[in-house]
């Protein structure tokens, strides 16, 4: 549940970008930061090491202003995607309000997407959260690679693999060039705010 300060009329919303290693979670945040840093006036904190990979997490906080009289503060996080960093992933998921699952569209990453979404489900269950109930947006990243002749899964195949049961809103995207990066973020923020409002009723 989001952190709500009734006295200060402030809401903090935590959104986590989850997905397999090298799928483009950090690239999503980097694109948002680079493109809108003048407007959101914030700093992106990122811990990169061991060959430029996210070892702990990236963190991008920003305010979106007043909604229903409350100051809404958004915090975007990424998790390290590599299998062995599950403890860090679990830790980052603590108190999560909304999730963007960034899948890698490359054919050779098919299995890793499935493993990663299962891992998300398990880690959420540790916090007594259900993947079907939490605000979730799925992004199929790296679709642009098809233009270079690299085999990528079609939107339909990815939907079948990852979204057949969940039926979450989904976007095909290219985090590097920014295609649908902002769309994805807007969607998850809107869904999360609506869900928090619903919970508060």
């Amino acid at each position, binding site marked *: 549940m989001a952190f709500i300060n009734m006295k200060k009329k402030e809401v903090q919303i935590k959104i986590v970008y989850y997905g397999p290693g090298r799928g483009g979670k950090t690239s999503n945040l980097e694109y948002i930061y680079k493109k809108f840093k003048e407007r959101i006036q914030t700093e992106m904190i990122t811990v990169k*090491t*061991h060959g430029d990979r996210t070892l702990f997490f990236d963190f991008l906080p920003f305010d979106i202003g007043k*909604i229903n009289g409350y100051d809404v503060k958004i915090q975007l996080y990424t998790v390290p995607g590599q299998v062995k960093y599950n403890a860090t992933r679990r830790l980052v998921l603590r108190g999560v309000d909304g999730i963007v699952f960034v899948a890698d569209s490359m054919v050779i990453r098919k299995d890793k997407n499935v493993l990663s979404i299962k891992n998300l489900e398990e880690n959420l269950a540790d916090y007594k959260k259900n993947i079907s109930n939490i605000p979730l947006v799925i992004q199929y990243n790296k679709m642009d690679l*098809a233009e270079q*002749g690299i085999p990528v899964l079609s939107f339909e195949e990815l939907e079948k693999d990852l979204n057949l049961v969940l039926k979450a809103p989904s976007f095909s995207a290219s985090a590097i060039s920014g295609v649908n990066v902002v769309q994805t973020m807007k969607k998850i923020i*809107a869904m999360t705010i609506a869900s928090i409002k619903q919970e508060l009723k």
Partner: protein
Amino acid sequence: MVSEKDSLNIQVENRLEDLFGESETNSPAAAEGGDLEYYPFRILKSIVLSMDWEINDEVLNKFIEQIDGLKDAYKEDKILLLFLQILRSLGIYIKAKKGGAHPNAFKIINSVFIRLEKVVLSKNLSEDSKKKMLFAELSKFKELKVQIANSNTDSVRKKKAETEIVKKKKMPVATPVPATVHKEEVPVGLIASGTQDYDGKDIFTNAVEDIKNLIRVEFEALREELRLFKR
């Protein structure tokens, strides 16, 4: 009349539009690769893009196999051949070391491949610019070799010192990993070699093997370099 839910949605949308509103290309449907021009480096690119820490022999064998095929196809192009040779040497090194490979090796594979692609795809690039790109990558590669050699020497020294401590004290050394941090999540190289009772002979043999491998890879690259420039 606008419902409460709709009013909230409108407010959120407006706020997000104010902050992030700008022409953003909408998602194209997944492009089909049918009418694409044949791009000989696409499989190699796909392998480079997919390399991560869970590196295994299968991926690296494919990587080396692809490079060998491309070397054969581009045997007349000295610059491309050298780019491919650097990639091959890095592939052999990572295959031997796997997760223990120097972190910069992964960075250099990416950067060499990016430059290689530029050379292949930029039709108007002069020979001089291509050479500049190649030498920039070559110097990164050489720097990496020095870093590897230094880290090998350091680790031999460190292991020797640890062996002596273990022999003197005859008791286990604590592993400096804080209780709250999962041991597997500490960056490679930060975990001291804890309670293991090292055999000095084994350490020395391993270090010699490491150095031998490094020299072999280096010689292979040098021989290839000389061979190409002699032509």
